[in-house]
Structure formats: C-alpha cells, structure tokens
C-alpha cells in the first residue's frame, strides 16, 4: 500500500512537472509563432488576387463574332453610308416618320 501511494505521488509529481515544463515551453513559442505566421500569411495574401476564384479580365461575349476581312468591311461601310445617305435624302424630299426610319439593305444596319 505504501509502495502504491509512493508510486502514485511520484507519478502525480512527474505529471505536474511535465505540465509546467510544457506550459512554459509552448507559451513563449506560441507568441513567436503567431507573429511569424501572421507575417507569412500577410505576404501570401498580398501575392494572391483578391478574388482568387473569379476571373479578373472582362467577361467575353459567349457568341463569337465572325471575322470579316478588312476589305469586305470597308466595302460594307461604303455601301452603308451610300444607302443611309439615300434614305436621308429620301426623307428630306418626302418628310415623314416612315421615310425617316425606313429600312435599308445594309448589313451594318441589322
């Protein structure tokens, strides 16, 4: 019995010493580590875009526009101007709402 009590006391004493030593060691470490961790996290955060999972570039149209050769586009513009001018002159000769907003065959007007 005495021996049991002695072993128990020594175990409790040892446990208390271990707890004290652990507490002292982890207490100082925790403060240092927290500062270093904050610094590391700040640096990493600064390097990462704010919206990590969101594309920062402007959204592109989902429908791809057909690539028109420059010469074709210039011809279309030329034709558009002529048709629009003709429509405008028609309106001046016979002013009405219909003649002002009448449709033309220009592909640029649709």
């Amino acid at each position, binding site marked *: 019995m005495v021996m049991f009590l002695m072993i128990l006391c020594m175990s409790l004493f040892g446990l208390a010493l271990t707890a004290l030593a652990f507490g002292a060691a982890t207490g100082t470490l925790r403060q240092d580590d927290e500062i270093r961790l904050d610094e590391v996290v700040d640096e990493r955060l600064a390097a990462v875009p704010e919206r990590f999972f969101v594309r920062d570039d402007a959204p592109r149209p989902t429908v791809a526009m057909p690539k028109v050769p*420059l010469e074709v*586009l*210039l011809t279309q*513009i*030329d034709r558009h*101007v*002529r048709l*629009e*001018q003709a*429509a*405008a*002159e028609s*309106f*001046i000769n016979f002013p009405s709402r219909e003649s*002002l*907003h009448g449709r033309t065959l220009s592909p640029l*007007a649709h």
Partner: protein
Amino acid sequence: MPTIDQDLFRGLGEDDAARILGLGRPIRLAAGQELFALGADAGDVYLVERGHLALTLPMHVGGRDQDILVEERKAGQIVGWSGLIAPHRFTLKATAQIETDVRALPRAALLAYFEQHPAAGYTVMRNLASAVGQRLQVFQAMWLREMQRVVELRAS
C-alpha cells in the same frame, strides 16, 4: 469651259457668272490626288467642272485609320464651302476618284466682288446656304436613323 450650270451660280446673270468664274483658277487632279486635307486652312471654294470628288472622314477600322466616304461631288457641284464660312478650315478630306477638273475661287477675290456687286453676292450666298442646309439636313436624318438603331439594340 466653265458654265453657269453650277449649284453656286443658280439664278445669277451670265455676266456675273462669267466674271466670278474669271476670278478662279483651274486645277486638274489625277485619280487619287488630294484636293484638300481635313483641318487644312480653307482659302478657296471649289466648283467641280468635270469628274468626281470623294469627301471622306477618318475612321478607325481594322486597327488603323481609314478614309470613309461621306459624300461625293460631281460636275456642277460646289466643294469646300468652308472657304467662305468661318473658321475657314476644311472639315472633310477631298480626293479625286477619277481625273477631275475643279475651279478654285479665292475667298478674298469673291468677297471683294460681292462687295462691289451685292445682288450677285446675295444670290451666291443663298445658293451656298442651300448647299450647307442640304448637308445639315442629310446628316441630321442620318444621325437620327443611327440613334434609332442604337435605341433598338439597347432595348433588345
């Protein structure tokens, strides 16, 4: 040989028309040759006697500036009325589409003649106002048609 069958001379007596034409100097343009540039000082008014002129404005197309046709002028029509209207700067570029003859009428000589012959000056200025008004009305209508399309696009 210049005739009085010109926009600018409508309603003018033959004597006055001949004297005014005599104030000018003939210019022959090769196809593609520029008569005046956008923004250049406008000291002359031009009468197209033969050929075709393209009046253009620059537009950014395909990554570069392109001359876009705005109006065409043919024989009998006036070009470059900025020569008579302040601030006397051309607001378009004029280029010959084919070999073209024009008569350049200097502003100073025209205004001096109009001071001496007010009736002729009045007639010419009325014709000029008609040409300016015509362009204004055409472009006003074109602008409104374009605005209508923009509104329809936004609404769709």
